[in-house]
Each structure stands twice: as C-alpha cells, then as structure tokens.
C-alpha cells in the first residue's frame, strides 16, 4: 500500500464518516433507495428498509457508510492481504437488525449462518476491496465476509473459515 493510497483512504474514510452522519440523520426512519446496481439485499428482522421488507444497497451506499481495513493471512491467498469494507456491525445497526443470526447467501448459492454477535465481537467486515481493488466476482467479489484471522488464533479455524462467505449478495437477519 502506497502512502498516496493510504492518504486517500483516510480522506475517503473521513468524508464517508461525515456522509454517514448525514445519512443516519436522514435515515432515522427510512433508508435511501439504491440508485445504482443493487449488490446487497438485507432482509429478515430489520426495522430499516428501502425496498419493501428489505434494505437494498448499491456500492456507493455501502461505501458511504465508511470503510474499515483488515490486513490478514487467509487460507485462500498466499501471504497477507489487505481488505477494505463496511463494518458488518455498523451495517446491521444501520438497518436496525434485531436477530440472533445472520444468514449470508452467496452468488454461488453458498449459504452460511453467522451469529450476529460475531460482528461486534470480532470486528468483521463486509469487504469490497482486496489490495485496493474492487473485488470482481471471479475474485470472491463483489462482497466478501472477512474476519481478522491474524488477530486471534481462534479465528484461524474451519468454523470461522466456513462463516467467511464470498460473493455475498444477500443477508437475512433471523
């Protein structure tokens, strides 16, 4: 990661956090409808929606919530990788999730269940970028649930690897 990118990231982070504040004040009741292609649909036990019973997000909407960075080794890549994405905890709170688990459904029909408490406990993100590039579908994009595996040995197990779903398109709060 070059210094330039980092600075940009920080600036972006700062701007997006300001934007988030505006959004939050605006979406106290409602969530803005997506303007671009919807890449994530959250449904289930949520109180904030923007499309029927669901909350739909395009890439911009997600990025506007602010990005977090995790740099960690994974079983899927050789060497440590830098991931940027939205805090799932924050995301869940933004939609007023009131459940115990979240079912993540990927484009390849892979489904996994994640306890809601994981997000706050482990600072799990819904990654958009790997090594500063938006992840395409062929590289686990557009959204990839990433745990900070290096921060805790507990996370380096099949249990958490199986919760790390890629090509995520839907989250259902249960």
């Amino acid at each position, binding site marked *: 990661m070059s210094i330039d990118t980092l600075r940009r990231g920080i600036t972006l982070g700062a701007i997006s956090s300001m934007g988030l504040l505006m959004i939050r004040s605006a979406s106290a009741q409602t969530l803005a409808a997506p303007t671009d292609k919807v890449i994530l649909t959250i449904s289930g036990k949520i109180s904030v929606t923007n499309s029927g019973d669901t909350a739909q997000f395009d890439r911009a909407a997600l990025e506007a919530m602010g990005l977090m960075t995790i740099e960690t080794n994974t079983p899927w890549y050789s060497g440590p990788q830098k991931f940027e994405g939205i805090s799932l905890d924050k995301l869940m709170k933004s939609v007023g999730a009131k459940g115990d688990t979240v079912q993540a459904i990927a484009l390849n*029909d892979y489904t996994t269940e994640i306890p809601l408490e994981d997000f706050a406990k482990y600072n799990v993100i819904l990654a958009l970028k790997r090594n500063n590039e938006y992840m395409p579908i*062929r590289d686990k994009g557009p959204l990839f649930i990433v745990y900070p595996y290096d921060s805790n040995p507990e996370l380096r197990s*099949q249990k958490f690897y199986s919760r790390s779903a890629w090509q995520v398109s839907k989250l259902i709060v249960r």
Partner: protein
Amino acid sequence: MLKMRKIETLLGAVLVGLVLSALYVSSLIVEQQNLIRQTARYNVTWLASQSVVELQRFQERVASFSIPSSKVDSDEVALRYQILLNRLNLLSSGEFEEFVNQSADRRATVDEFRQALAEIEPWVDHLNPENAARIRARLAPLDQKMSSLAAAANRISGDQVDGDQRELLSLHWFFSGIIVTLVLMSLGLVLLLHFRNRLLKQAHREMHVLTDGLKDAKGDLERANEDISSKNDSLKSQNEMLVLRDIELRTQNQRFDAALNNMSQGLLLVDGEHRLIVCNERYRQIFELPAESTKPGASLATVTDERFAALLAHQKSIASGPRSATFSFELAAGTVCSVSQQPMPDGGWVATYEDVTERRRSEERIAYMAHHDALTDLPNRAQFREHLERALELHHGESGSFAVLYLDLDRFKTVNDTLGHELGDALLKSVSVRLKKAVRGSDIVSRFGGDEFAVLCRGYPDLDELRRIATRIVERMGQPFRIGGRDIRIGTCVGIAMAIKDGSDCDSLLRHADMAMYAAKNTGRGTYCFYEAPMEEQIDARRALEDALRRALQENELEVYYQPIVNLKRMEIVSFEALLRWTHPVRGAISPAEFIPVAEETGLIVAIGEWVLRRACADAAQWPNGTRVSVNLSAVQLRNDDFAQIVFSALAGSQLPAHRLELEITESVLLQDSDATLAVLHQLRRFGIRTCMDDFGTGFSSLSYLRSFPFDKIKIDRSFVKDMHVQEDCRAIVTSIAHLGQSLNMTTTAEGVETREQLEAVMAVGCTEVQGYYFGPPTPAVDVAQVFSRLEKMRLAA
C-alpha cells in the same frame, strides 16, 4: 536421619519428575494444539467438491440457455462463468495449490480446467445455442477429472483426518500414561510426605524430649552454676580472709621480728626438752653466740657456752618450778646480766636477759653522787645526816659518844667573786684535802655546799680531843693556800655541838653546831666555840630583830640623822652625811652596826636604802648654800638593776641638783660584781652625782680601786684619825692619803675628828674636809639649821 535424607532425596526426585512431566505435558499440549489446528485447517475437500458442483451448475445453466423456454439468460451464464473463474483462482492459490502440486495428475486437471475456461470465454461472451453446445462439449471431459480431483481431495482429507485421529489417540494414551504417572508420583509424593511428616513428627517428639531433657539439664546446670558461684563467692571471701590473715600474720611476724630484734633485752624461748624455740639478736650478743648455732630445735646444752653451765642449771631448776623468777647473773668480770624467767605450761620457759652492768654502774654512780659532793668528792649533807643518824641509833643517845663540827670559810665569797669560780673550786678542793688531814681517820668530813663543811667526830672524843681537832682545823685553814700561782688567805671559825648534850637528833645537833660557829665568828676570826644554850637565844633575838626591822620601815621607826662635814679652808659646812637611826618602840635606839648587817642579809636594805635616799634628797633640798648630802650605799643596793633609776627618781622627786648628792661606797662594794657596779657608778657620775670612797684604808688593795673609778672624794677611816696625833704610823698613813688625794685631785675627808688636837693634826697633813663630833654629832633633820648657826658661830669665834 539417614531415612530422612533418603526421603528428602526421593522427594526431590519426585518433584523433579513432576516438574519434568508438567513440562512434557505442556509440550504435548502444544503438539496436540497443532494437531487440532491441522484438523481444523481449511478443508480442501470442500473446495474441490464445490468446484465440481459449480462446474455442473454452469453446464446446467448453459444447457438451460439453449432451451428457449428457460429463464436462463446470458448474464446468468456469465455470472456462473465468473464463479467458475473464482473457483479456478481458489484451486490455483493458497493451501489448495499445495494439494494440487503434490501430484502431476492434479496439476494437469487444474491446468486443463484453466485451459477449458480460457477456451470457452469467447463463447460465453457471445453466447448462443451454438456456442452453448461448444461450451458443453469442451467442459464434458472435465466432469470426470474434477470429480477425481474432489475424490482425491476427499481421500487426502480422510487420510489426514485418520492420521490426525491416530495421532490424537496415541497422544491421548500418552497423556493418560503421563497423567497416571503423575497421579502415581503424586501418590508417591503424598506417601513420602506422609512418611516424612511422620519422621518429622518423630524427630519433633525426640526434639521435644531432648528439649525437655535440655531444659531439665539447663535448670540443673543453672542450679549447679548458682551453687558453684555461691561457693565461689564464699571461697573468694574465704580467700580474701586468708590473704588478709596472711598479711596480718606477715605483718605480725615482721613486727614480732622487729620487736624481737629491737629489744634491748635478750630473749630466749625454750621448749620442755630444753630445746631452743626462738631467740633474738640481743641474746646472741649477750652470750656471744653465732647465728648458726641458735637455730630453732637446737639443744640448749650444745648452744650455750660451758661458762654459762651454772646459769643453765639454775634456769632449769627454776623451769621445774611453777613460778617465774628474776635474778642477776655475772656473765664475766664486771658484766652483770639480769635474767627474768617465766615457766611455760609445756615445761619450757621464756627468759629475758638484760645487761644491767651499765645500769648498775649508773645506779651506783647516782647513789654515790647522791651521797657525795661532786667537787670535793666528800660525803654531802645527805650522807652526813645518814652517818649522823646511824651514830645516833648506834649510841642510843649515849652522852659524849660523838660530836659535830661545823665551819665555813671566811672571805670565801670574796675570793670566789674576785678570783673567779674556778679558783674558788680549786680552793674548796684544797680545803677539803686539808680538812681530811686535820681530822682523825675515823672522822667523817662533809661538804654541805658553798663554803660550809661539817665533821662528824666519832669514838667518844673528849673536850680536849675536840679542841685539838678544832684548833688544827682553824690553824690549817688560816695558812695560805697556794692556788693558781698565788697565795690565798682565808680563815675559818668552828662551831662544835656534842651528842647528846647539845642535841639528841640530827637537826638540833647541826643547828647548834652552826650556832656555835656563828658565836665563834662573833668572837673574832680564826676561833672555835662549843655550843652553849644562850646561843640559841641570840639567834632567836636576831630573828626577832629581822621582824622588827621589817616592821620599822612600815611603822616609820626609822629616821635619818645628818652629821656635818666641814671644809677646813673655809671652815664652813659643805655637806652632811646621812646616817640611819632606828628607835625601837621597846628596845629604844638600835645601833646601825647591829641592824644594817641584818638588813643586808635579809635584803631589806634595798627598800630601806631607797627610803633613806629619798628622805636625804628631800631634806637636802631645803638646805642653804648648795650644801650637799652624802648617802651611804650598800653593795646589795648596787646589785639592784633599778638602782640608777631610783637615784634619778629621788633627785627628780626632791628637785635636788645632782651635784648636791654624794654617794658613799666602801671598798667591799667594789669587791663584788665590780664591772656591773662600776658601770652603774659611771652612769650616775655622768649625771653629775658625786662619788665618795668610804672607810678608805681598811680594806684589801685600796689603791687599785682608786684607779678603777674616778672618785670625787676619799674618806679616811676614823681608826687612822683617832690616834694620829699620838701614833706616828697613823699620822703617816693619813698624810699619805691626803697627799694621794691632792695628787689625784680628790677631796679627802677625815672621819671621826672629835678633839681640837685631831682637827689640827688633820689640817696639818693637808686633809680638805673634816667630819666628827668636834663639829657636831649626827642630828635630826629639824636640827640642821641649828648646826649651821652653831658652825657659823664657831667660824666667827675662830
């Protein structure tokens, strides 16, 4: 203790084992953790199997696309194609890549899968039924290969799981073994600890017992210690006492030694066997014994010289008796030893020996001195009295058995004063020698002191015998004594008292002899006299006279008379001689010749003389024409230290000028203490008082006295004047004296001029003054004026 050490070693070993086991268990747990992590690793089987599913789904989507009624569009196919690409990435990266690389077939399969996907991409992009058919045709052979890959992955995983499980199992057994070992070891530890505890308890009990024992022992020791220290204290005090006693004993010994050896007496201590216990240095000196022969234990018989055998025998005989004894023993010729012996209870004795030779001699000398006169070696008064008493006892008052002669020397005092005591002493010695020769051998001559001697004549001397003896004494004493180159003439008078006629005891005999001597003296020089009863009366009378004289001064019985002295040239009174008169209330007038000697002997003359002097001065002060007064002085008066002061006082009291006072002294005055007397006379003369030599010509060597003092006047004794007109020798003497007076520029007064012839005679020889009855007798002071007038008439008549 050995057991305990073994147990300690075992315990240590078990603990080390436990620690090692724990360490090993820890390492095992780490290993197990790794194994579990391996089992938990990402499952490649799932990746591989998913790739088969996704491949089939893509093929199914492509097939569906060809069927017109299906809902699958090209986007759906493209999405599936993207998913396949994603799968391909997964297979060619990460852990799966490791799995693929393990086998060439797997790599070939993946390579083929990559190649097939690459080939079908254009067809997917341009999807149409024809391309769909091509895609299916191209992917068909891959199904079987991908399934094989999945199966292989499954098999590998299975094997892996199997191996892991086996390993876990063995690890489990190992664990169990170790735990069992640990349990066993812990049990062992517990046992060992229990055993150790027991041992410790036992040791504790033993220690307790030991401690109790020690406590008891300590108590015992403390008590013993206290006991010892108290004993030690008592020993110390005993020791101190012993040391003190030792010091005391030593001091006592030293004192004893010092006392012994400093004793003036010889000391001998002898035991019951007559062996020497101790003796001192003085003892050895007395008996001339060497120190080595007088060691304690030596037999007395061998110690002492045979010279003292008699002494030893005597002492042994005393020792056998119960009493102490003191006796004298003559050690050698002239050496007398006094022995004092005290018997001891054990049959021995202690004796002191004192050389009393010197003491004896001293005693004898003292006894001799007590009985003898040191100067003449004659028996003294005391011994004389003893002899006298013995004689009285011997004869029981037998009459005529013995007589006492008493004598003194005439003029001895004058000799002693003028020629000195040494010469006087020598004279006394010579006197004693002559006395002894003068008496008989059986008589005892004694000196009573001074010039008094007594003789005891024993053996019934008759009167003639006594007269002869007395005469011899008087004659021999009358002969001159040749002493110190000159002849000295004295004389004596002897008084004789006879037992028992003149006294039946010492005192009366001696007193009566003395009285007889005075009687002889009164008779004249060079005589003897037997005692007669009236003598005592005379003595009594004299004593009465003394008393009367003493009273006379107080009672104003004395009176001064004045006899005129006339100057022959001018025929007028130049002075009066003061003459003392005593009128006794009973006896009437008493002659000065009688009472003046008594006054001189008793010393009353000092007071009387002073009274006369004051009286005379006072009377003379009334006289006209500077008439002098002449006062006689006694030698006794001049001997008084205050005499000059008395004279000055008399002059001052009467206001009589000094030159009007004349003092008359006789030659005898100058004979006694002449230096002192002359000094006083010079003192008086310097004051202006005139001096006069009285009775000139009657004394010893008158002329030398004239030289010794510048007299103003010489009075020529009446004895010369009386007969000068009939005896030529008297006349010659008076003439000479008158001439002498002229030559020496002295006035000459002729005394005792009573007749016209006498007056003319003295005038003829050149005497300057005259005194005597011719011009008037001594008259009372009140009649002095008449004397003046009578003389005036006589002068005018002449």
